[in-house]
């Protein structure tokens, strides 16, 4: 076992875990953040996506040690009550079906817009296609990304 101080959603959590335990399970079961989802465990689906220093990463593919001092943001920490422009765009577009994949897609979008505030469809294709939505909400995800980009404009 090893102890780590993880900065998650603006708070420091001290966890005592196996060093090789994936961050996904640390966030879910040590810290109780259930918005981080388990879909594949091999970085193929994106359900476990979190922001690390503002950049989307697959938490199933990282350990606590990999994160170091960086700030981790999960869907629970993205906003107090859904007021983040990406969440707003998602609500307006009524994007989710089962909803399971959506925290991952939302956080991936936040990361995308940070580096590319006005993504083209081709940019969206490139950035959002190593994730899976089995319900097939892709058309609405694409629409919501454009709406969120518009909203973020100063």
């Amino acid at each position, binding site marked *: 076992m090893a102890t780590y101080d993880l900065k998650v959603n603006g708070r420091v959590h001290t966890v005592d875990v196996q060093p090789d335990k994936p961050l996904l399970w640390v966030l879910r079961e040590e810290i109780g953040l*259930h918005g981080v989802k388990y879909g594949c465990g091999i970085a193929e689906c994106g359900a476990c996506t979190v922001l690390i220093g503002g950049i989307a990463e697959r938490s199933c593919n990282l350990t606590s040690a990999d994160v170091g001092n960086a700030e981790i943001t999960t869907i629970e920490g993205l906003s107090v009550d859904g007021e983040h422009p990406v969440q707003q765009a998602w609500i307006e577009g009524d994007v989710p079906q089962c909803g399971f994949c959506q925290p991952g897609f939302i956080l991936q979008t936040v990361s995308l817009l940070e580096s590319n505030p006005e993504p083209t469809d081709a940019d969206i294709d*490139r950035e959002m296609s190593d994730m899976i939505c089995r319900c097939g909400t892709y058309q609405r995800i694409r629409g919501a990304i454009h709406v969120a980009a518009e909203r973020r404009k100063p």
Partner: protein
Amino acid sequence: MSATVNLSRRRFLRNTSLAAGALVVGTALPWRNVTASEADILESGVLVAVGTDGRVTLQFTWNELGQGAMTSLALVVAEELCVTTDRVDVAVPIWESKYGDNVTGGSSSMRMSWQPLREAAAAAREMLVGAYCSRMSYVPSDCKAENGAVMHKKLGKSIPYGELVAQASDLPVPESPVLKDRADYTLVGHETPRRDTRDKVLGRAVFGFDLARPGLLRAAFARCPSLDGKVGSVDDAAALAIPGVTRVVTLETSVAVLANDTWSAFRGRDALRVEWEESGDRTDSAAYWSLMAGKADDKGFVTRNEGDVDTGLASASKVLEAEYRLPFIAHAVMEPSSCTVHVHDGTCDVEGPTQAPGWVARAVAEAIGLDTADVHMKSTYAGSAFGRRLLPDYAIEGALVSKEIGAPVQVVWSREDEMRHEFYRPASLHRLQAGLDADGRLTTWSHKTVTPSITAQRFPDPNRTGADRGAMSGIDDVDYRPAHFRATHVPVDAPINLGWLRSVYDAQNALVNECFMDELAAAAGRDPVEFRLDVLPDDSRLRRVLTEAAARSGWPHPSQPGRSLGIACHACFGSYGAQMAEVSVTKGRLRVHRIVSVLDCALAVNPNAVRAQMEGGVAMGLSVLLRERITFDRGRVLEGNFDDYDPLRLSEMPEVECHLLETDADMGGVGEPVFPPTAPAVLNAVFAATGQRIRELPIEERLRGDG
């Protein structure tokens, strides 16, 4: 007349969140006894209540699987009770045996509840109007309900529902409440946002894996890799050495590793060494295809026979034959299976995602020797379902372990567990024959399918023989009417577990019908739409959606040069769908640019939710067409995760244009019907683009590079 009753004064409304003092009206569901007693109606689980605060509660026992059922059902109640939707709360009670099986599947939740829900809500409305009239000494015909209150049409003095509830509760339920006219709808048929969206966008929706509570043990299982195997010997030393692993429980057909957390449970399971006693002839995919091909020469069971196909073929100017092959595929639900089970004091509590709480309860009760009535099931959100969660296997595992250890357990499946141990859509091999006359019209059609029966495997019955009606859905009930028509089923055993997957057999059957139709139209040198219209009766709703799809898509002209069009149509689950696909193929790479989808489901209660199902149906149709297939070796499924079972990605999603057609017919389903016509429309467009006919799925690896 259905059995609608006043339950307001019943004080045994336990297990509900209905407020005291409410006006409560209950209605029997159509599959229940319509002469039901009051108690039966209570037990049917469809109750509409108006509280003293004027809020409306709808209690129902369908499961929200992502199809928007909660929103749409609340919409119906709000419409009939004349309140805004934000005044309606939806309560889903803990399932008990009195509710019946409560299967959420087959595009049924709205179709089944539409009538009883409206009747209950309309009865409540009339009772509130009645209470108002007796208080004000008006006659009902001068009064109306509007926006949560009752008022005189001319004098305008209104009293809110909440103040009328007590008086209304003492009134008898009207014999035949007058339902609102469709033309007066202000909510039903209008775009409505989903109620569950916010929770899902904020990460607050609770799914199966999220039922964490302190001290809860996680259970991961080693299961026999092939069908029907049993545990031989177990070496659990390495598993028990993993930190966090607390215990190993050996069952008859699986071995459970219990741990304090999910990851340790998975690791412990991976460290188990189990020898399996495997039985049966364990086959591989190639051998199974040979078996199917051999079976295709069998006579099989003819389920529809019109005219004389042999004569028809003999006298045809042109005869075409083709063979299509569709592999086993997986549901690959987004959240692997999971549920939490606690066996205690002669009862069993199950909590998790399911499409059929009644089936879970029966299976669990049988597995651990309880009465079904002693099993209680609480549903969570499901990380997609598509038919996978009709099966109770994961709950049975949990119950067996919980009983053994005397504590609650959470069953956790890894992605690999889910991929290799679920219930697959049956593979099928189809033989088609058809004849054309000298004018290039279809005169003769024969469709024979070789495919295993899900029913036969899931509900074995030695007395059952003949064709499986389900397997023939979309083969023998098509609207096409050539002079000579034959539909045949050759049942065959399945080497792996079978399950119901969105549209069940209709997606496979539609693909084969519609692609072969396209082959025939091409052979006749005719337009594929015209060619189909020849054999569709004038009053066929399929004819209408097909014509509409052509008209609205610009058929037969692609929107841009370098693109090609394909079209297909299919009816199932009470609805009629047609689709036009616009594609291009460059160096063997298929790009689907646009899908124009037309659906006639009679009435779309919430068009927003219907469109979502249409978009999802297109995505799944493409996914299955492009890459999905389950292969096996010695009876073991080879695919294990999303790296080798790779569903559709966002970059592959076409623009989907949805068109809904209204009709006065009975309401049709929306979850299933758009999936089947997708793949054939695209495949026909691929032919138009490349001249290549692909008759075996998935197609990505089969597309020619020179297209």
